[in-house]
């Protein structure tokens, strides 16, 4: 790692000030992606602003229709605390990385990083979440902007994520066993006014909604409604673990499984 300073603010305001005072400063969530990145010298921030000591960014509240999660809340806490209020989200959080990683990695960090194979972006997009930052509220539909890119401005931090709780939901993750990221992951969420289907791990553009599946499922929430629907291989990612066609195929398979599990 290159050398850097670390600041440990105890409030959102202090964190924003620390990030704003230095163009080369970067926010540090749980560090489960950023620290490995720094070790490989793929980033060289002058200063890291740690968000883990900010009490107002910790914790979860649920009011029945919406689950609100502080941006610095680790995956392990989400996995245990929303098990009743939003079971599909709890299951997703409880299957990220491994237990030690889940005790450090945070929902805000995952959404800010927007890895194209991360799990949380699928949950946020399928739930129609609101990403709350120090400056504004951003609808999930306007937030994800391609590989590792989001609507966040420089120095803007995810302070809270508000997820509307669906009537039924399920996340199917085809695990890439070495990285434990999703080779493909599909989150299906059924609301009173329609179904949302978000796909991670597959597209060159990052997480996306599968509009044809949403339309079919909104009329008939069953795996049968997806019969014959396919995703074009064009625009999918390809690597040694899976070709474009393989990923496209997995999307349809996993979507059916998610609907069957949720219905």
């Amino acid at each position: 790692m290159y050398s850097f300073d670390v600041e440990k603010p105890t409030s959102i305001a202090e964190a924003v000030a620390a990030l704003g005072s230095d163009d080369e400063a970067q926010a540090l969530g749980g560090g489960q992606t950023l620290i490995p990145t720094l070790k490989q010298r793929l980033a060289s921030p002058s200063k890291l602003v740690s968000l883990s000591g900010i009490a107002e960014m910790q914790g979860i509240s649920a009011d029945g229709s919406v689950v609100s999660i502080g941006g610095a809340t680790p995956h392990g806490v989400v996995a245990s605390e929303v098990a009743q209020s939003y079971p599909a989200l709890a299951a997703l959080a409880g299957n990220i990385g491994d237990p030690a990683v889940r005790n450090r990695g945070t929902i805000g960090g995952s959404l800010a990083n927007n890895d194209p194979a991360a799990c949380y972006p699928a949950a946020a997009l399928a739930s129609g979440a609101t990403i709350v930052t120090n400056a504004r509220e951003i609808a999930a539909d306007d937030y994800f902007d391609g590989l590792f890119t989001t609507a966040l401005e420089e120095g803007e931090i995810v302070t809270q994520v508000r997820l509307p709780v669906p009537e039924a939901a399920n996340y199917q993750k085809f695990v890439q066993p070495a990285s434990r990221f999703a080779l493909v992951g599909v989150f299906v969420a059924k609301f009173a006014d329609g179904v949302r289907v978000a796909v991670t791990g597959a597209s060159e553009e990052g997480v996306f909604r599968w509009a044809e599946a949403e339309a079919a499922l909104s009329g008939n929430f069953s795996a049968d409604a997806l019969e014959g629907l396919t995703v074009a291989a064009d625009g999918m990612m390809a690597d040694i673990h899976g070709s474009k066609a393989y990923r496209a195929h997995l999307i349809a398979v996993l979507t059916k499984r998610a609907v069957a599990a949720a219905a």
Partner: protein
Amino acid sequence: MTKVSMTVNGKAASGEAEGRTLLSSFLREELGFTGTHVGCDTSQCGACVVHVNGVAVKSCTMLAVEAEGAEVATIEGQAAPDGTLNTIQQAFQDHHGLQCGFCTPGMVMSTAALLKENPKPSEQEIREYLEGNICRCTGYHNIVKAIMAASGQDVSALAAE
């Protein structure tokens, strides 16, 4: 350099760390707790697992300065002061849950975290919980057996495999 203070295995400890100093490096090189091993340094292998404020973390993927003021538990604090092994360590010895022993500190610390959460885990739950702990001798079967035994469960069903 910054002065970093924490409690390690119940005793106050402090030393100097740079911003980039990893908790694993700080424990080993500054404080002398070399029982915490660094296998991969990429948060894959779990040899460096310690507890920070009661939860298991990979100390190679946490900055030392972030553990300022924390309660840290390492493998050195598991046995009694006179060297008597704790239940988990004794079970690893009894059931041959280690071969070269390199992964053992992390295995024991992960096991301690597992049994705190889930005092009687099933074989499947043990294998899932240890997903982030790699044994380069591939001695998983006896590790699982040791954990079943440490949690007071019958290991005879596993013994034949």
